[in-house]
């Protein structure tokens, strides 16, 4: 993979993980490395990993926070399987991450933090040589990061604690040197952040440069590396996390629907960022309402939908459980509201900061009665923009609640987003009804979407509610005939969404030996595995579902073109269950529940096993 270029070795791809105590500033360090690499022209993908506790006791295993970045001169779709470089700021960070470092990988530790006390906190014996077992297979660099930072800042009139806080910049500077990155974008960022505190600004820049020069001066690092620019599609880009992209997608949808945006939500990890992000957009006419609980969040959203707003509520699995009764009210009143579920590890409070795809069956079936709700899933951070718009489009054009699914990995992960040409976005088409002569609350168009007339419209006064009703008039009607009819109409309305979907994209040949069928955040890993298997000459293709309910009409035919359908999921087989029961296709699952993203090498190995069985 590497070519020698005098003293700089060229690499195609590198994965670095910065980890340390949750107060060590590792998220910030990782973000800076990301932005610098993006501006440099690499393709990037990141994945932060933080503890559920905001500040767990210092130095403990529970308090380790990490940020992983994969940057490359190729197009990449994952945050990387194995680490090329691990930066560990203390023994706890070392212990919880060292197994992910690959053979001959680089370990950089802050030697000063490996004190007997910290070793004990991480569960080691205080004088244990913890590096010994690894030294034969990895390259260990013990750097006195704290001492060097303090020395560099000797002349600064600051508290020792404040100086020590700059050590993350030292570590960042050192990695910049190793990977030949420029310092200027981080310097600019520091200037914008600490512009009003010149002392702190200077100290951080000094520490950053000290780290950089340390790499240059000391001979411990034999090599530095270069990861050239990637061949990226021309266009304007920005780095974006999934949650940011969802927020912007909702604003875009509001413009396409020509309805003001209302978000009623309650803070919950990992969805909170969306509410926070939208709270910044008051000047876009966005109304954000932090409700007293999950139930009130969706209740207020439904109320705003009745009043004619584009309504969204954001949550995670435990919140879906609480919102379920209201989701059903939106089903029976046929009001457009988007419920964004940013999945996390469960059951119960489970693993609030870890990723999983375990809410699929919950959002599809976790309600009383026959309760069809369309489900749309995003596949990557930048894809959240389009997926959020699609969820809103379905809600408004088909007059239905819609679940938008993302997960922790997408929500807090980031990647470059090729900014769309906004003039290509299609306006929503729907019947915002104002004419009393032609109005009836449950009168439907050819998509079975009912008319949307809102309070304030003269002559269209009507009452809707949770009781079963008669079609067209919407009058309460609990008769057997009315219930049978309405149940089928609600189901058919959702099914009709499939008639408007574009043909399903297949990555690779449309017939072959093995089809990977996936949804959500597994996209990048599955795509990378698919491409590598194809490069090895295997007849493997990939379909990644945007719409899980209804499923695309052409999906069955595609699946039947392959000898085997394999469904990788971060659950125990939820999409598999649906595919098997709906189509009687003997789909096989690759299921992982260890809170980590799927690994490309695992997928490839398992695909080969399945192929071997053919």
């Amino acid at each position, binding site marked *: 993979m590497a070519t020698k270029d005098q003293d700089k070795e060229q690499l195609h791809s590198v994965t670095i993980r910065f980890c340390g105590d949750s107060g060590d500033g590792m998220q910030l360090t990782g973000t800076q490395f990301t932005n610098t690499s993006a501006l440099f*022209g690499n393709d990037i993908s990141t994945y932060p990993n933080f503890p559920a506790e905001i500040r767990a006791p210092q130095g403990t295993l529970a308090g380790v926070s990490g940020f992983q970045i994969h940057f490359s001169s190729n197009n990449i779709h994952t945050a990387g399987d194995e680490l090329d470089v691990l930066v560990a700021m203390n023994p706890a960070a070392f212990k919880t991450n060292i197994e992910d470092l690959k053979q001959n990988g680089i370990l950089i530790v802050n030697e000063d933090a490996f004190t007997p006390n910290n070793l004990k906190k991480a569960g080691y014996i205080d004088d244990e040589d913890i590096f010994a077992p690894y030294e034969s297979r990895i390259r260990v660099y013990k750097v006195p990061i704290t001492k060097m930072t303090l020395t560099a800042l000797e002349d600064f009139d600051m508290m020792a604690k404040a100086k020590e806080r700059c050590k993350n910049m030292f570590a960042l500077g050192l990695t910049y040197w190793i990977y030949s990155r420029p310092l200027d974008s981080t310097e600019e960022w520091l200037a914008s952040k600490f512009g009003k505190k010149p002392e702190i600004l200077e100290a951080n820049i000094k520490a950053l440069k000290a780290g950089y020069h340390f790499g240059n001066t000391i001979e411990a690092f034999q090599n530095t590396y270069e990861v050239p620019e990637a061949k990226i599609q021309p266009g304007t880009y920005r780095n974006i996390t999934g949650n940011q992209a969802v927020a912007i997608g909702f604003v875009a949808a509001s413009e396409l629907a020509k309805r003001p945006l209302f978000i009623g939500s309650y803070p919950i990890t990992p969805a909170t960022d969306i509410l926070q992000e939208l709270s910044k957009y008051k000047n876009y006419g966005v109304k954000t309402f932090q409700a007293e609980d999950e139930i009130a969040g969706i209740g207020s959203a439904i*109320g705003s939908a009745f009043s004619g707003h584009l309504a969204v509520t954001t949550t995670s699995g435990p919140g879906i459980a609480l919102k379920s009764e209201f989701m059903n009210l939106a089903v029976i009143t046929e009001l457009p509201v988007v419920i964004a579920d940013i999945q996390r590890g469960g059951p119960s409070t489970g693993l609030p900061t870890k990723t999983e795809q375990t809410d699929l069956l919950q959002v599809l079936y976790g309600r009383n009665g026959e309760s069809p709700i369309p489900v749309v899933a995003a596949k990557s951070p930048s894809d959240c923009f389009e997926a959020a718009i699609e969820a809103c489009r379905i809600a408004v054009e088909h007059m239905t609640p819609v679940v938008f699914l993302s997960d922790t990995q997408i929500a807090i992960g980031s990647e470059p987003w090729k900014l769309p040409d906004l003039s290509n976005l299609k306006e929503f088409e729907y019947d915002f009804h104002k004419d009393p002569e032609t109005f009836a609350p449950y009168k439907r168009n050819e998509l079975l979407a009912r008319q949307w007339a809102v309070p304030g419209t*003269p002559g269209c006064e009507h*009452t809707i*509610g*949770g009781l079963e009703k008669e079609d067209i008039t919407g009058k309460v009607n609990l008769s057997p005939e009315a219930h049978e009819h309405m149940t089928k109409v609600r189901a058919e309305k959702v099914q009709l969404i499939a008639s408007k979907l574009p043909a399903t994209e297949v990555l690779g040949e449309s017939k072959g030996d093995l089809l990977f069928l996936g949804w959500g955040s597994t996209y990048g890993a599955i795509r990378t595995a698919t491409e590598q298997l194809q490069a090895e000459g295997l007849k493997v293709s990939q379909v990644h579902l945007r719409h899980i309910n209804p499923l695309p009409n052409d999906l069955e035919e595609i699946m039947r073109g392959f000898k085997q359908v394999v469904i990788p999921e971060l659950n125990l087989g939820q999409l598999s269950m649906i595919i098997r029961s709906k189509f009687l296709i003997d789909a096989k699952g690759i299921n992982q529940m260890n809170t980590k993203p799927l690994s490309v090498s695992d997928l490839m190995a398992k695909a080969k096993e399945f192929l071997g069985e053919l």
Partner: protein
Amino acid sequence: MTQAKELTKADFVSEGDVKWCPGCGDYAILSSVQTVLPTLGIPKEKFCFVSGIGCSSRFPYYMDTYGFHTIHGRAPTVASGVKLANPDLSVWVVTGDGDGLSIGGNHTVHMIRRNMDLKVLLFNNRIYGLTKGQYSPTSEQGKVTKTSLYGSIDSPLNPLSFAIASGATFAARTNAANPKHMQEILRAAAAHKGTAFIEIFQNCNIFNDGAFAKYLNKDTKAEENLFLEEGKPLLFDGETKGIVMNLDGNNPKLTVEEVDPDKAGVSKTGKKFLVHDPKNEDHTLAYLISYLGSISDPENPAAMGVLRSVDKPTYGDVLNAQEEQAVSEKGKGSLKDLVYSKDTWTVKETANA
């Protein structure tokens, strides 16, 4: 502006039958609301009635206005969304003692403290009617029902005390069997800018008949109702008795004393009677008055009328002001700015050929 046509009660009566039990107190409330609405000068299409679950919550079906029959206890949340999305609407929440104070108690607190500018009608019949007779959060302790065969153990809530303690800017009580008073209170609530909370004593003639009989009986009503009037002393029972403030140790206490027939406005022990001031910013006295005559204080008369009516910006007003402020500071946002705003970089065609 919409129509010049004068609205009448008939404009607010929906077609179809009203399905409450014959003799239910709800009929009188419905009729009073339908009587008052056309007098408010608000176009018909601007009214929206939002309810939860329970007998009271069938109300929107019987009104010819916009209406939303939602789910149990959650009407305040939907009503908040309706109102925030369209501040021009006159949004009314219809709820009961179970819906609003038990399953939906949480939302009731927040709807009140935020001053959402909703008109709240809480029908208090001190029983669960729609599920056929179980004790409610306002039932008296020891009440024997189908689920409390040995008497209920819960201490009852007093809806008005609950509302005032939650920060209500408007709190009032009336009785479904006194339509004239009820209509006066409804008009006052409609005129109030902010959340207006009204507790309505409402008789369930099937499962809790006579719960409020003492306020209506010829022989007892004079001594059981304390009708409040702004600026007037708190007198009742043909102005023979009144309310004075006493200190019981460190505890302020309202007690009944007889009027001195020889001295106006003074009790027989020489104390001054309290003068009603619903605009008092401090809610302490309103809270004490709300407690009078409650289930836990049956010796005293119950205050009827507007206990509290103070001015405070509504949630929606502040929300809209913040939006205007954001626009004036940052300019009206455009999607293009939002998408293309932050740290972008451009990859050129030639650079990667």
